């Protein structure tokens, strides 16, 4: 639920400077904006992987001019008429929609990846921390069913703090819902690849992100079920720095490989070439 704390917010700088330079949120090095964008928001100094928008991710993975969005009209719902100390969820979500142009925390669609037809779901952390709610679950379900119909591989790129509290149990039920859709792919013998990016935690890690045929993680991505603070309070000890990182999960057998962003498309394409029935 990390979207309540805005990360890496910096004071507005003079326009000329901001146009040219980006400061790496991790190592604070100043990088040419052009270089930053060419390296897909990966720091050339410390290889920090900055979060990507869905568009950037689609541009990274999908061949130019081949992407078609699915379920574009599916939007967030407010089944509980939820409001908290700061106001109503409906307003907050509508504001986020205006700001980001997103209807929900995921964009789904199909296209070609290195020439291979695929269905993809790309989560966008900007929409309420990429949280999983009814709209997210519905989009994933529809995308999975589309992959089933076309008999194309399905890829989900996760970036999420977990289930969205504001839709209560309706959010929790998206965990079995998305997994039920993925089970249909499995029964049909269709591949599903899960790409975990920073962060993939809570109800997303405990549902569709962790049941891939192949698990790929981005370097240093936070991946885990419970929050670090909760665990430290429970076991009354400090956790190691690398706890719940992609590297830690690789070591413990929960991801197949850690792939730097520049190699992600090639790796996915290479892997899917092993799938015989295209």
């Amino acid at each position, binding site marked *: *639920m990390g979207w*309540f704390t805005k990360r890496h917010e910096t004071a507005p700088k003079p326009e000329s400077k901001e146009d040219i330079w980006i400061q790496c949120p991790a190592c604070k090095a100043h990088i040419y904006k052009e270089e930053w964008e060419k390296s897909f928001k990966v720091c050339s100094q410390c290889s920090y992987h900055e979060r990507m928008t869905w568009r950037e991710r689609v541009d990274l993975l999908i061949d130019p001019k081949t992407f078609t969005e699915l379920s574009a009209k599916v939007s967030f*719902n407010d*089944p*509980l008429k*939820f*409001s*908290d*100390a*700061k106001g109503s969820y409906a307003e907050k979500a509508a504001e986020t929609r205006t700001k980001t142009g997103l209807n929900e925390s995921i964009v789904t669609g199909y296209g070609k990846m290195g020439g291979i037809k695929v269905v993809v779901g790309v989560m966008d952390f900007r929409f309420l921390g990429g949280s999983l*709610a*009814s*709209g997210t*679950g*519905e989009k994933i379900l529809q995308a999975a069913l589309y992959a089933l119909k076309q008999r194309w591989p399905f890829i989900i790129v996760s970036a999420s703090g977990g*289930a*969205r*509290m504001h*839709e*209560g*149990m*309706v959010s*929790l*039920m*998206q*965990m*079995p*819902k998305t*997994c*039920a*859709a*993925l*089970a*249909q792919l*499995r029964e049909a013998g269709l591949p599903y690849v899960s790409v975990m990016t920073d962060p993939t935690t*809570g*109800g997303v*890690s*405990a*549902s*569709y*992100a*962790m*049941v891939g045929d192949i698990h790929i993680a981005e370097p240093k991505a936070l*991946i*885990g*079920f*419970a*929050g670090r603070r*909760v*665990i430290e309070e*429970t*076991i009354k*000890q400090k*956790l190691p720095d690398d*706890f*719940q990182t992609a590297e830690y999960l690789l070591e*413990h*057998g*929960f991801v197949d490989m850690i792939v730097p962003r520049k190699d992600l498309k090639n790796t996915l394409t290479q892997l899917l070439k092993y799938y015989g029935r295209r």
Partner: protein
Amino acid sequence: MNLDFEKPVSEIEEAIADLKAKNPEPSADVKAELDKLEASRLASLKSVYASLTPWQMVQVARHPDRPLIRDFLAGLCSEFIELHGDRHFGDDQGMIGGFATLDGIRVMVIGHQKGRTLEDKIKCNFGQACPEGYRKALRLMKLAEKFHVPVIAFIDTPGAFPGKDAEERGQAEAIARNLLEMAVLKTPVIAIVTGEGGSGGAIGIGVGDVILMLSNAVYSVISPEGCASILWRDGTKAPEAANALKITAKSLLDLKIADEIVPEPVGGAHRDYPGTMAATRKVLVKHLKRLQGLSSKKLLKRRFDKYAAMGRFR
């Protein structure tokens, strides 16, 4: 143990105890007075429980005397053959299961175990299952599929165990795997929330063809305390969060998440085990008989449609 909001009841109970202590051999007059007090105690209990707030229901659902899985097994089943271990790592006491016979129907029971004594509670991690618990549950569900017996999942957990070891052994993967496998398990599954339905830890065994809730049980995406500390930035606002999260059986029936409510006796399940068991048995048997009549093809189609419809509002 009476809860804070049961004060009117407690006062009458004190008066009854007082009167009994003063009259070890009660006269006819005292007996009549005691009967009157007992009647008003029941009336008071009924009125308190008729208007519980969601936060008060959380207190009832977590009541130390609330029936736990072993009480349900003892009260509902003529036989229980416990099976142990996940065949990978260990035998989690936070999740138990085995073959059981309920009203002559052979079933597989799985469920969270909170433990009654402090020693037991520690052994069970207070009902917070570890990955090996979810994997044991899955193993037993697969066994149920093979033996053609339905599964009953008793849900009562604050949540999956948030520990270092649990993370290392793949808490997320274990829960996720269960969700996927349960979606296509070729035998009927009944999920019944008897106390606390704590988020991922609950849904990890909760993919039922029907979802039942005891009338004072709660089921939530996050604990009210956790939600309050994040969204209200104040853990003491848990009552507000409990209200906003719509976690009661009635709310979840309205949201079409719970399918049926098992009515608890007056004053809650912890005051009347036999009454609770009778009500639970009646509803379970009804659904078992109905679900056992379905072909596995039809069963799976219905299960898929049920979960696919979750959260569709337009």
